[in-house]
């Protein structure tokens, strides 16, 4: 009798455990299947979503993706009467979990996703069950710009200086992540200038900024948003932005583009909206129209300003062509 008691108790414990797991599973399933949407009943051109929208974000609350997701959702909500929505976070696997989940929402018209450069880069680095061509591109709304920064005390004063320096010794360049735009720009720059940097890989922009202030690296390639405070204070010096045009105003405005300095390297982290595979045409048009209208509003200006992003609106075939070009470019740089 007594010897049996412990195992009974263990079993009781396990039973609790399993019941709890099952309880959560059923919650989860309910949450996912929700109201299925996607019934394209109306065939008129002025289609509007019925019921609440779901904006999927593959990264957590508070990050850059969350910010653009909320901004775009707010823009879409302004677009027609009674349109509301929520941001749903599907995190994990460097974004793969979110994209995989979104691919399963075949044909739905009330599901949209805030997307960025990882849509094209992820499948090149990781075994993903998807490529960008699985989804329905709706519109690109902005570009986050990458800039090149050196410590304030560095003798390097231009992109050409850095390239010359790299011909004589190993120059260390801090980047965030191997698969991010920073590292792709490093590859493009090396290819153009016929040099090779030693890249030091960090996890986020805060770490690269600390590396600049502590003189741990010769230069940093990173998002302008992370570094602008240092540039303004004169604790770091920006040498180039890798965009088609300079910033219009603010502390980054005097910084020349790489193209101006004779290096044809432009690559940015685009931000935009995609739909699930097979999203009905009228829904795509509705969302793209909404976002196009949104780019005319002060809310859009405010988004660009607080994110230090540059305007870059594209829709339809233009956006698809952009994605195809970007993928080709990355393949070339990475040799994949």
């Amino acid at each position, binding site marked *: 009798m007594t010897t049996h008691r412990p195992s009974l*108790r263990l079993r009781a414990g396990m039973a*609790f455990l399993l019941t709890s797991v099952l309880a959560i599973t059923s919650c989860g399933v309910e949450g996912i299947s929700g109201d299925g949407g996607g019934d394209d009943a109306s065939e008129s051109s002025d289609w509007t979503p019925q019921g609440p929208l779901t904006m999927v974000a593959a990264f957590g609350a508070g990050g850059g993706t969350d910010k653009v997701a909320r901004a775009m959702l707010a823009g879409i909500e302004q677009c027609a009467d009674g349109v509301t929505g929520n941001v749903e976070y599907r995190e994990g696997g460097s974004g793969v*979990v979110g994209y995989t989940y979104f691919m399963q929402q075949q044909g739905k018209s009330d599901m949209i996703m805030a997307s960025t450069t990882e849509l094209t880069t992820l499948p090149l680095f990781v075994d993903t069950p998807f490529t960008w061509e699985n989804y329905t591109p709706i519109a690109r709304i902005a570009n986050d710009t990458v800039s090149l920064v050196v410590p304030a005390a560095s003798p390097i004063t231009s992109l050409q200086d850095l390239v010359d320096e790299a011909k004589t010794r190993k120059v260390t360049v801090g980047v965030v992540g191997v698969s991010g735009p920073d590292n792709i720009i490093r590859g493009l720059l090396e290819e153009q200038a016929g040099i090779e940097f030693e890249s030091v890989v960090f996890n986020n922009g805060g770490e690269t900024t600390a590396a600049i202030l502590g003189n741990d690296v010769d230069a940093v390639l990173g998002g302008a948003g992370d570094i602008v405070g240092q540039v303004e204070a004169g604790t770091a010096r920006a040498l180039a932005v890798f965009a088609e045009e300079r910033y219009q105003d603010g502390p980054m405005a005097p910084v020349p583009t790489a193209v101006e300095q004779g290096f044809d390297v432009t690559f940015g982290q685009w931000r935009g909206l995609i739909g699930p595979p097979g999203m009905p045409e009228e829904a795509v048009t509705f969302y793209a129209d909404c976002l196009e209208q949104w780019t005319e509003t002060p809310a859009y200006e405010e988004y660009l300003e607080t994110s230090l992003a540059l305007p870059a609106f594209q829709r339809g075939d233009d956006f698809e062509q952009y994605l195809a070009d970007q993928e080709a470019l990355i393949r070339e740089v990475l040799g994949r």
Partner: protein
Amino acid sequence: MDALDPVIGGFQTALSLHNLLFCAVGVILGTVIGLLPGLGSATGVALLMPLTLGLEPVTALIMLAGLYYGTQYGGTISSVLVSSPGEASTVVSTFDGYQMARQGRAGQALAIAAIASFVAGTLTIVLLMALAPVFAGIAVDFGPPEMVGLVVVGLVGVVGLSRGIQMLKGLAMGALGVAVATIGFDPQTAVQRFTFGSVEVLGGIQFVPVVIGLFAIAEVMSQARATPADPIRARFRDLLLTRDDLHRSRAPIGRGTVLGFFLGTLPGAGATIASFVTYDVEKRVSKRKHEFGKGAIEGVAGPEAANNAAVNGAFVPTLTLGIPGSGTTAVLLGAFLLFGIQPGPLLMDKEPDLVWGLMASFYVGNVLLLILNLPMAPIFASMLRVRYAVLYPVILSASLLGAYALENRMWGAWVAVGAALVGYFLKRYDFPPAPVILGLILGPMLEQSLNQTSSMGSGDFGIFLHRPIALALLALSVAILLVPTIVARLRGPRSGAERQLIDD
């Protein structure tokens, strides 16, 4: 007294009725969020940020910061009562805090945690206000090579957690943690490791579900197996701190405050490491080494002081340089931007009212938290009078819900279940689970900083020779490993060898 003007101005801002109210809302919400396993301070701040958009920037930031340090108080409560850490930085409080609770001393554990947090919180605000730029300078000197040194010191701490055969078991568990941490997509090399083609583990094994499984659920399982312990029947009076408790806690709180603040200022290190390192230090200097892990109040007081001091430390690089000192301050920097305030070295010059008001509010918030937590300690502790048949299912569902909520996916709950099964057998065969957590946190940091150091020196580790701080830290870890053995050899069998090290 011109130098004090901004401080006085700051307190005027923080003590306005409006800001006081939102500070209170922040700290109360923080306590609740900290209490719930899986919901950490970073998530809490991120989720509430949009709700504060209608407020004045300073008010919003006061509330969000209040939420941040409120979670450090709240996280302790679930660590102590049910061995389910609500926050990563309160994992350490389960070691002795939970044991104290098992002995009917939950009230004391919670009270000393509140006092330690308060003392550390308020003392380090003075440091933050007076010396932030100085500390920020030191923090920036901590590059990847120095981080390697610091992480090695932390890992060597595993050895300090136990002795003899237990030490070997501890090392094995630390290695297990490091091994588990290698799973997933490696951002350094873009290589997938041990994923077996599964999308779920691409992002690595998250640390929170493992903690929940290993500590909370495994504990419930082994309790369910053991002879049923009686619910704690302490009288209300027995839940109050004694003079001896306070006396024993004084020095640990002091050490925890200093260590926590300093480690907190380093970007990337933070409250969790601070709490582990402080625990290790306390165990080393204590006269009652054998009591550690069995309900030593020093093991609660020191780390609790450290994790709160680290929160203020994390604000040093955040406010003076615009570099986040922790995950949560990174989210807070995002909030600055939402209000159109550009964080960076000029922040204190451009927005003095905001910065000083915010710092003064930390003081106010800590007072509020002490008022809130100290009288509540015995009340929370009374929760343990609830019958286990009722309490355990609640703990289990709260734990699994927390593991799920971390990333909104079932995977987290399954990781917690897996960790619980492992944890159950570890407990049964007397393997310490704490080093697994340490390995899980420190493993990736070691790998990353070692990689970066190697790149910085183009593959030549001679770079360490040019970095005095890194060298000193590496030397320190060697000393930590060897000195106790050498001292013991020299002293022979005579005891009291360690007594020399104490009483500073």
